[in-house]
């Protein structure tokens, strides 16, 4: 009869687990990059003066924030094939998580843009700065400072969301753990190892964000 907890499991399956963790990081990084692209596009559309574009941006943000990631993962991987569009499992996961995360990032950017305040733009114009210079030198640094903690949370949320890609057989950490659990029946051991790895990854990311926040925005702390 097998025990529920096997402390030696990590060592025996270390190469599989490490490969899974590496894929999780890669998938997370690509998904975050995609979500920034979609988020920026979503915000630009939503902030557009053209009503049709603003409507498209608004619809994107609302639709994606009110539906689960899993739908998009399944839809992109299994659904698009029926109309002749074939993405690999990895690309499907990156796009699904990127599109979903982009909706949240669009809202974070919108919030940061609103927080900076109109008077800052007026002041920059009064100093003779053109709109793009005002954006680059006055608004964006302040926006980034406001948005940074929320963006950090979104990055972590996307990283943890990569576990959903296991349903379409992306060999990330959760998928590899399921495979190990399936062949050893040591689900508790493998998922506890999983939990510790996710915890460590998120802690490292959190600390990195704190460090960047401290280095970049430390001197401005309390000035908004």
């Amino acid at each position, binding site marked *: *009869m097998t025990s*529920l907890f096997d402390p030696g499991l990590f060592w025996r399956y270390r190469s599989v687990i490490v490969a899974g963790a590496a894929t999780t990081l890669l998938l997370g990084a690509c998904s975050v990059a995609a979500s920034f692209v979609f988020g920026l596009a979503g915000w630009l559309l939503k902030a557009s003066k053209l009503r049709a574009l603003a409507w498209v941006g608004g619809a994107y943000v609302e639709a994606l924030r009110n539906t689960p990631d899993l739908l998009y993962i399944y839809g992109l*991987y*299994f659904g698009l094939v029926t109309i002749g569009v074939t993405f690999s499992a990895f690309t499907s996961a990156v796009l699904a998580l990127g599109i979903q995360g982009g909706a949240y990032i669009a809202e974070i950017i919108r919030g940061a843009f609103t927080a900076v305040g109109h008077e800052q733009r007026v002041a920059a114009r009064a100093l003779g700065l053109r709109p793009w210079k005002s954006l680059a030198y006055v608004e964006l640094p302040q926006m980034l400072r406001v948005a940074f903690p929320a963006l950090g949370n979104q990055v972590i949320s996307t990283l943890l969301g990569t576990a959903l890609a296991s*349903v379409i057989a992306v060999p990330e950490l959760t998928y590899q753990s*399921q*495979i190990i*659990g399936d062949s050893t*029946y040591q689900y*508790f051991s493998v998922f506890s190892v999983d939990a510790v790895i996710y915890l460590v990854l998120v802690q490292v990311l959190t600390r990195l964000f704190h460090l960047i926040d401290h280095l970049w925005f430390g001197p401005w702390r309390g000035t908004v």
Partner: protein
Amino acid sequence: MRGRRRLASVVVVIAVLAAVLVAIDLRQGPVSGQNEEILQKVLRTHVLTVGTISGNPPWSITKPNGELDGYDIAIAKLIGHDLNAKVNFVVTSGAGRIPALQTRKVDLVLAELNYTGPRSLAVAYTQVYSNPISQFLVRASSPYKTIESLNSPAVTLGYALGGNEAQIWPAMLPNAKLQAFTTVADAEQALLSGRVTATGETDILNRELIKAHPGLLRAINPAYIKGFVGIGLPYGDFDWWLWLDRWVAYFNYTGQNQKLWDQYMGGGSPLVP
């Protein structure tokens, strides 16, 4: 200072997690004398908790009204009747069947659970109540016509976690690649969408799938394995195992099994010599 406190809190979380897992493990052990035996519990509470899977016709399916139906479900209801107990179904995934028994979330599992060597180390079984055969299923347009032809690096075989394919296929088709999916439905979808070359299921499920997707799928004959399906139960409870095993023997020789098999499978015999 704050950084050290945060690090300490992470270490505490990991330590608590490890302690919980060790406690769960210590709780398991030989059950007699530590937990109430299942048979006594069922007779006392008149509730039998049965783990099963859904989406596996005609073994177990969810009807439009949300009720479970199928061959395994009917067997569970018969057991419940004989124990004078209400049957409480817990629907889990294929991969969730074994942990549900290991953690005693369920009293037994009736979910087309085949005997395998590694599985037999994790849970106990009753004697066999059916021997379904399994075949590979490919798309109708697939160039692969025989089992041997699937032994190619160009072939990807899709399967659902929790089955015995990961133990059988690598030895049978060492050159083919394997791709695991969370559920049987996902593996089927992967076949239909061309993500995998073939899947392997019982001839009964394959027949249902071929019927559901006319002209799209084709089974490869002959069967690659004959199954040995028993009722799964937790290790360490001798009385429960003995009662259930005798119950299955009675179920087999009285013809009740054949009757249910005819009703749900449409003929043939549940036990193939």
